[in-house]
């Protein structure tokens, strides 16, 4: 086999060219201020992309796309915790602003994918990296399972911005710190509370995508994620407990943070962490569960979101994230859960963390049923998978977490449809004789085929005789995905529907993270195996 050119020399030279250059800040010039009126992508980005598309053609690639992306993240907040050996509190602020900018080129040559990426966004480097991507593809064709086939997509020229009212990056950092300082001080006001933590994240993706099939798409996505947490410690019993105020992380602006009422919720967290610390341990056994959206979202994610990813089902994740019990013969007929269960894959719903107009294949995103009346209907797919299950178009689930990452199939927002309008959470509780109400995230773990799970929570309340009682501690429930969903017998109405989500879903090698939301209303599950943890 022909040896590939030595990269370090080229890399170093290219690196120095940029490192010693004196241009204005390139990312700012290319992406400019976010625009929600202009419908056309930046001509400067199109010009750079054209270099990759032309070079790929020259090198014999049959397909090429380039993503030129910038990511911004800002984290700020406070930790309040006791000094060593005293009751005095240290108030520790933190603030960081991070930016990452570069491009990745993906090609198909000799029927195989190739990918290469660099942080040096210059025409020369784009041409060089495109050649590298073609070399990677050609080398790989020596060990080819089958040639890549792409489901057709239209060519789009468009510019899209996720809806937001107030740019979270434009809000002064001192205002953010003041908000978190105030909330954490409120939590720590009771000396019995050991520590308080307040966290505020703002995130933005500037994405540009161009393909050899004629698409040119610029998108801007803004997201916010605030949270508060209290910790209490009982030194005599050698136990500690936490209580969080989990806010829905959303594709939205500062207005979502304002609506979260952090200051107003801080006293509740303070009281509830102490109640959690004193709460009696659960008596294990079969119990009915009423799960609130801040908790149920992660159960949906782990058991249904992951099991219906087509790459897992087909063995592409076998060495890392795993495979799935939802094998292809089950499509269209397998009863996953009760008839109340209607679940959608959706990258179009407002506020969802995976919501975007076009995916990283350049496909217009959609909403599609994953489970209908309890029956499994459709997988999450991307362009190079659709033909493998006899479908003719992608469902728009392609995503890469960085300009330096290979785009692949990632989870869209996967949400549970609400129940009848008149059903309230109290109605669900009223129907439980011996059960537990669970809110928030705890310890989550599920096997690599998504059968056996064990989930904790952030707070647990006993339900006795149809009434919510005091808090419990040390609760986890263990079940099998299909057993669990088949016991679903009540879902509250649309006015209780909330979308919680995660920014840190891991999959792929090298591992990538993904953000998505899982909307749901409070729901009831019958006779689930509840454990007492240590």
């Amino acid at each position, binding site marked *: 086999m022909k040896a590939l050119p030595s990269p370090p020399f080229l890399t170093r030279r290219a690196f120095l060219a940029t490192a010693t250059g004196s241009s204005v800040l390139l990312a700012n010039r290319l992406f400019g201020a976010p625009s929600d009126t202009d419908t056309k992508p930046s001509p400067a980005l199109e010009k750079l992309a054209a270099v990759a598309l032309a070079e790929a053609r020259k090198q014999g690639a049959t397909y090429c796309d380039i993503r030129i992306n910038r990511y911004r993240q800002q984290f700020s907040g406070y930790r309040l915790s006791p000094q060593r050996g005293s009751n005095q509190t240290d108030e520790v602020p933190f603030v960081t602003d991070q930016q990452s900018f570069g491009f990745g080129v993906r090609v198909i040559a000799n029927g195989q994918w190739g990918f290469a990426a660099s942080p040096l966004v210059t025409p020369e480097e784009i041409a060089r990296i495109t050649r590298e991507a073609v070399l990677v593809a050609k080398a790989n064709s020596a*060990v080819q399972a089958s040639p890549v086939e792409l489901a057709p997509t239209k060519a789009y020229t468009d510019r899209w911005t996720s809806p937001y009212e107030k740019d979270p990056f434009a809000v002064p950092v001192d205002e953010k710190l003041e908000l978190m300082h105030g909330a954490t001080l409120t939590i720590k006001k009771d000396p019995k509370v050991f520590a308080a933590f307040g966290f505020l994240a703002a995130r933005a993706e500037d994405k540009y995508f161009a393909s050899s099939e004629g698409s040119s798409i610029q998108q801007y996505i803004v997201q916010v994620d605030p949270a508060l947490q209290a910790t209490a410690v009982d030194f005599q019993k050698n136990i500690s407990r936490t209580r969080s105020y989990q806010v829905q992380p959303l594709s939205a602006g500062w207005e979502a943070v304002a609506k979260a009422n952090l200051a107003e919720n801080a006293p509740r967290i303070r009281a509830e962490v102490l109640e959690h610390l004193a709460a009696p341990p659960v008596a294990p056994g079969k119990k009915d569960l009423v799960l609130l959206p801040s908790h149920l979202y992660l159960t949906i994610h782990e058991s249904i979101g992951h099991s219906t990813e087509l790459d897992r089902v087909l063995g592409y994740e076998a060495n890392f994230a795993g495979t799935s019990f939802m094998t292809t013969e089950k499509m269209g007929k397998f009863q996953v859960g009760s008839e109340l269960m209607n679940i959608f894959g959706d990258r179009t719903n407002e506020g969802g963390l995976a919501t975007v107009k076009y995916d990283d294949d350049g496909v217009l995103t959609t909403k599609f049923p994953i489970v209908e009346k309890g029956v499994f209907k459709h997988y999450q797919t991307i362009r190079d998978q659709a033909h493998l299950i006899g479908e003719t178009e992608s469902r728009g689930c392609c995503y890469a977490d960085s300009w330096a990452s290979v785009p692949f199939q990632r989870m869209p927002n996967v949400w549970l449809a609400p129940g009848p309008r008149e059903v309230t959470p109290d109605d669900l509780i009223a129907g439980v004789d011996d059960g537990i109400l669970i809110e928030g995230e705890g310890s989550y773990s599920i096997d690599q085929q998504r059968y056996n799970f064990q989930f904790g929570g952030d707070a647990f309340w006993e339900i006795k005789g149809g009434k919510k009682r005091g808090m419990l501690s040390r609760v986890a429930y263990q079940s099998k995905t299909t057993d669990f969903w088949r016991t679903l017998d009540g879902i509250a109405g649309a006015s209780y529907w909330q979308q919680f989500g995660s920014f840190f879903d891991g999959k792929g090698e090298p591992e990538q993270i993904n953000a998505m939301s899982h909307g749901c209303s409070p729901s009831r599950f019958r006779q689930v195996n509840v454990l007492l943890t240590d």
Partner: protein
Amino acid sequence: MLTQQEAKNLIDKAIAYSKLPQCQADVSWSEDAFIRFANNGITTSGYRITQQLSISSVTEDKRGGNAVVSELTDDAIKRGVEQAEALARISKPNPEDMPALGPQKYPVLGNFDSYTGAARGDVMIPHVKAVIDSARQSQLTAAGYIQRSASVAAVGNKAGLFGYHTYTDSSLSNTMRTAGGTSSGWAAQNSVSLKDINGETAGRISAEKCVRGAGARKKLDPGKYTVILEPAAVSDLVGYLGFNFGARDAEQGQSFLSKQGGGTHLGEKMFPEYITLRSDPFNSKFATTPWGPSLLPNERMAWIDKGVVKNFYYDRFWASKAGKDPTPAPDNLVLDGQDNTLEDLIKSTDRGLLITRFWYIRTLQPQTLQVTGLTRDGVFLVENGKVTDPVTNYRWNESPVRVMQNTLKLTQPVRSQGAEAGSSIVPAIVATEFNLASVSDAV
């Protein structure tokens, strides 16, 4: 590679732009090449360069701000410094901020391999082929991942500290499954040198495990079992143990090292005398840097010495409050072994389970360090000193502390990596009373 002079120039520029009393600049640069394969063919692969400069500035009255940039032009660095300083001025004083360290003498680590640093598809693809050939010979389907990276870490500050280090790393892991998905086998190799990676060996081990697991799998009742844990499983448990050696958490009632009623277990013999857990950054098998998060020179440190809780992790701030010297972060973990082979462990076991590796481990209770997780890619019954039948997978709820306390025998340690806790150098072990909570139908 980014040379020492080039890294220093970037750091010097950042410091020159800085107007506040303290400024620290961290450069990370890496180049990596990777190939992913599944269904007996290559799927995705790539080659990439990543870089970033992290700038941390602190005012006279201990207000700190941080900015991270990936563009490294003069303008971008200047803007990054201005941003970090603007954030610092806006922030509030940090009572836990420590004064900047002056010049340090960092140890020289021998963990850069130039062959690995230059490797591309032509030297990695033969390993992929070897794995796939092994799979095909046994009518199995292979999926896996091979990668190598060459990294630069450099750091400098206004007080004259400067460090520069280059290191490489590589790995090959693969999973083989039967056509009907009735069995799964796994093997992995990790080394700073790609020359140590051998696709033939990794493929053979996976194939053997998969074929051995393909018979009717026994579904034993959940309960407490003697287990023989292969190094990948031990690596995850040891990683969880290492994360929890912080002095602060121990003293403040939030770790397994906290004592009921207050105080800690420091100095107590909590484990059998053949349990020694230590950090060894000088072991050239680790892809690591000569300094840790404190920027003090890395050093060897025993956390458990012959069964005794010997040291806690003190960061600079907590050490200053406790009147102690700071200690290195519990990274680059080595669990010392004994002169046994895996076969010896199997032979010494009347009835137990041989476990390949774990999956999806999460903490349930910090004070006992009870965690939950699952077995994966090969569980086998051991009876009268012999591996007999394949067994189903299990969910388990257990504490790595109790596992170390219940350990009877160990093999010699090897560099290994599980699913959750990074790389360590650990042996296989045999331990009693391991709590299997329920059957997992996953294969």
